[in-house]
Each structure stands twice: as C-alpha cells, then as structure tokens.
C-alpha cells in the first residue's frame, strides 16, 4: 500500500475521532482505541520543554489503558459532576497531518490541532500537537497511543479530554 493511501487512512481515523468527540458519540470514540492504549497529555517543565517521562514527571493526563478513557466517559455522562452540568460545544480542527513512519502493523502520525469550546456564551480555545501510534493493519487501524502536547497549557478554568 502506498504512503499516500496510508496517510489517507490515518487522516480518516483522526477526523473520525474528532467528529465522534464533537458529536458526543462517546462509544464510537472509545471504539477507536485499543484496550491497552496509552493516552498522555504532558505538562511543561519550562517555557520550551514539555515533561518527557510520565514515570518521574508530572503530566496533565496519563492513562496506560482504555479504562481511564471509559471512566471519563462515564463521568461526563453521569450528570453528577459540576464541571459537566452543561457540556461545552466543541469544534476540533486538525491540520498539517504527516505520516512519520509506516510499518506493516503500525503507523506514526503527527498533526496540529485546535479545539474551540463554547459554553454559556463564552468561547475558549486550546491548541497543540498530536502524536499518534496507530496499530492494526491497512484498512483496520486503531489508536494504540495518543500523545497530546497542549501548547496553551495555562488553561481557562479546566478542561476534559474532549476539549483537546
């Protein structure tokens, strides 16, 4: 399969994930991830350097399996969390998608993102980079690792996984 076709498949997966989050199709979102996926949003240790080791440095979010994502989905839908009484509308924009590496069962993908959130007549935005590792085979990829570098890390109030 050509790199162009693999890049196209990777992009579709990224865009499908964005649509699932913006449309609040949480189960569809979870289904894009492998059970043993790693989901990581590093913090920053200086103006220029994000944290690099979740074992010894602080992250904003770190999960080493899909269970963490499932907890978030349960919480968002529980109607019991004050932070989620009204969900913001979100709009994921993904661009600059690059295929960094392609193997028979794995793709490494980098992209730039911006998510605008809108709640109670107030708009906020967060932006940064995605680094994905997709696992599976051509035509059937799932997310085995997603690293979200949040460039704008002094956030307004708080955020959850569907806002990055």
């Amino acid at each position, binding site marked *: 399969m050509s790199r162009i076709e693999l890049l196209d498949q990777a992009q579709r997966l990224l865009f499908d994930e964005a649509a699932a989050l913006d449309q609040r199709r949480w189960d569809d979102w979870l289904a894009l991830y492998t059970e043993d996926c790693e989901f990581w*949003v*590093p*913090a*920053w*240790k*200086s*103006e220029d350097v994000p*944290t690099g080791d*979740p*074992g*010894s*440095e*602080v*992250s*904003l*979010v*770190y999960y080493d399996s899909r*269970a*963490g994502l499932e*907890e*978030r989905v*349960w*919480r968002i839908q*529980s109607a*019991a*969390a*004050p*932070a989620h*009484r009204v969900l913001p509308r979100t709009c994921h924009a993904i661009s600059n998608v690059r295929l960094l590496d392609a193997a028979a069962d794995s793709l490494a993908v980098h992209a730039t993102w911006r998510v605008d959130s809108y709640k*109670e007549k107030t708009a906020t935005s967060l932006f940064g980079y995605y680094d994905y590792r997709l696992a599976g085979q051509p035509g059937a990829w799932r997310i085995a690792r997603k690293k979200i570098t949040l460039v704008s*890390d*002094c*956030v*307004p*109030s*708080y*955020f*959850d*996984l569907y806002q*990055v």
Partner: protein
Amino acid sequence: MDMRVTEAAHPALTDPGRYFVDRPAERRFNVHRDLFRDTALFELEMAHVFEASWVYLCHESQLPNAHDYYTTHIGRTPVVVMRGADGALRGFVNACPHRGTRLYTARAGNSQVQMCPYHAWCFDSAGRCVKIKDQPQAGYAAAFDQQSHDLKRLGRLASYQGFVFGALPADVPALEDYLGDTRFFIDTFAEQSAQGMEILPGEVSYVFRANWKLQVENTMDIYHLTTVHSTFAKIVQQRGAREAAAAGADQVRAVNLGALSSQEQGTYTFPHGHTVFWGTDPLRENRALWAMRPDLLARGVDPHRVEWMFRPRVLNFFPNIQFVDSACMQLRVIRPLAADRTEMTMFCLAPRGEPAAGRRRRLRQYEDFFNASGIATPDDVACYEDIHAGGLGDAQGEWIQGFARGMEKAIDGPDAHARDIGIRPLESCSGVEIQDETVFRGFYREWLARMQAAGGTPARAARQARA
C-alpha cells in the same frame, strides 16, 4: 506607602460590621457577599493582605545551584529569588531600577549576569548593578552617582524546611513566629525523606473566574466532598473492584472520600490566619509513602509526625499557599488577578529517593485529583464559578449562610489531638461527621485585622474589640 491605594475611607478599613457579623457569644459568624466581588476591595487586599507581610515564594529545590533564579509575585509586584555565588538566597523586585523594565522573563533559569533588555544595565546574581551602559561619557550628575542602582531587595526573605517565603516590608514578624505551631504540619510535609524533598518537574496552572477566597474556603471545606466529588469517589470505588478482580494489577488508587467523611476529622485555627484541616485515611496503605514508613520510623522521625504524615491534611498558609496531602502531596499557590479572576499554580512535592513504583503511583494520584484536567478539581472550580454566575445570590440577601456548621462543636484552644502533638491552636473542632465550617473564621478574622490595621486600628485592638 503604596500610592495606588487611594481608598483610605473604604469601609473594609474603617467599618468591620460592613463585611462581617462576628459574635462568638451568640455563636454567630456571617460574611457579606461583597467580600467576593468588590473591585476596590481587591486592590486593598493586594496592598494589605498580600503585599504587607509574608507570602510563599518557592521551594529551595527549584533553584539548587549558584546563579539559579526563580520568578514569581508578591501581590502585584513581580519578584525574583536568586541564589548568589555565595550560595545564599536573596529576593528582589524583578524590575530594572532605571525604567522599571522586567528583568527576568523566564519562570526559572541560571544567570550570572542579567542584562536589562531596554538599556543594557547589568545585574549580578546578588542583585548588584555591575554595569550602566556608557556611564562615563553620559553626563550623569553626582546626585545620580550617589544613588544605589542595585535591584530593590525584598524587606525579608527566609526559608523554613526548604520552603521559601518573602515579604516586601521589613517590619514583619520573624518567619518562625509567623508560622507558629503550623510548623508541625509543614514538618509532616518536609520530613518524609532523609534526602529531603523535591518539586517534581511539570508545573500546572489554570485561571478561574471567581474570587481567590473561594479557593481558600474550599480547601478547608470537608462538607463539599461527598457532593462535589461524588463521581471521583465512585470512580475510585470502581477501580478498587476492578483491581480486586484483576488480582494485583496496579491501577490508580486514591483516598476514599465517602469513607473519609465518616471518619474522625477536625480543623485548627492558628494565629495569623493559618488554618488546618485533618482527617483519617481508611486506605493509607495505598499511599506511595506507605512503603517508606519503616524507614521513617527507623531513622528516628517523631512517631507522631509519621502518624500524621498518613492523615489527609491541608495547611492553608495565610494568604497564598495550600499544603495539601490527601493521597499524595500538592502545593497550590494562589495568585489573585482581579476580584473575579484567580491564577492557580500547582506543584507535586515528593520525597527524594522514593522507589520508582511509588513515584509513579504518586504522580497518577496527583494528576487524577488535583489537575485542572483531572476528575476532581474541575468540579471545585465549576462551583466557585457558579457562585459568581449566580451573582453571589443577590436575591437571597446580603449575607452568606456558610460558616455555621460545627458552631456548637468548636472549642477555644487545643483539643486532645492538638495536646497530644504539642500544638496550641486558637480554636479546634474535631469529631466524626462534623464537616466543620467554623475554621473559615480564623482566615477572615486575620483578613479583617489586616484591613483594620491599614485603616489605623492596630490588629490587636481589632481582635479585642471583637472579643
């Protein structure tokens, strides 16, 4: 004298009854809603609460080497703490004396000589002006040469157990006296490793749209845990069940809030507005520190302190830092930006030399509860913002109905636990399921005493007038 403060006749300085009803004999304490929204009051708070005495600045581990620096604020004033060539820490206003340009722009770094970006005046790491560009041929008068061009030094800078505090004025109490018996609680944060403590890399910050005092209250507030953090409690419970099913898989485990609320707990109020909440952790063996407990006892740390290291506890240092230890330790630094805007910066404090598995668990517990991207703190912040979004409840009258819970249970002086550990709080409240609110009073009484002192009433007289 800060010339920005022009509200000399503001009621906060002259009329205590405008903001508080404080009648201990009637068991009555109320706070007026304006305390959280008056924009003129905000400037007075900056001048008399934040810029008039000690505030927390940083931890010594953040600037270990000669010429290291760390930037922060005291109220509205940008501040830089530097370690000189002699190894000593000094604090300065972070601005060039020439035109007021901020000198150090990065959060932290290492700089033997710092050049002002505007006109290239240079300063060494002891704050001395070492160069004024083109000085010899510039035509400066003798009056200029007679002035000091060094950086403006903070009135006071001192450390306790590695925590660095500073004050703009020099006429403040000695730091140890200002901390008083809260030092016992700081010791329970600072003495967890024979190798000392460190701030882990990764500073997390967020800005919420609410008054800073709501953050102070929240961290003393046991009453909110079972409602605001019900989803957190449920998730922790589900993890426990999953973990049991998986027999030994190391999932994130954290304090059981439901159980915490029904265990013995209490609050202490100390002089200078400091307050403490403590509880009983039914799952203390889940703490990363548990593995280090034998070492703590073996190296002779006071067994009382070791015992208290495993109690959930929070020390609110008046006015700007919260030492929190629920499952793991957190330092929360409060920086008010406006009456309705507050910047929080959070640090993960950990014992040096901790085993890798414990360190990993500590980090996951920290992120889980404390981060603004976690599953607990966002709910606290949402509640502060809902208080403001509700206009602080104008239609319900002027006085907030908090601060009443536990009123019949609070006592003057130490309770049995306090006597046990040899500390003398002004007030204590302890028991099971009390979820005390009376502890907020200590914070507000100090707040008012500061304002009254600025208005010409000495703090002691203000306290006596109340009694």
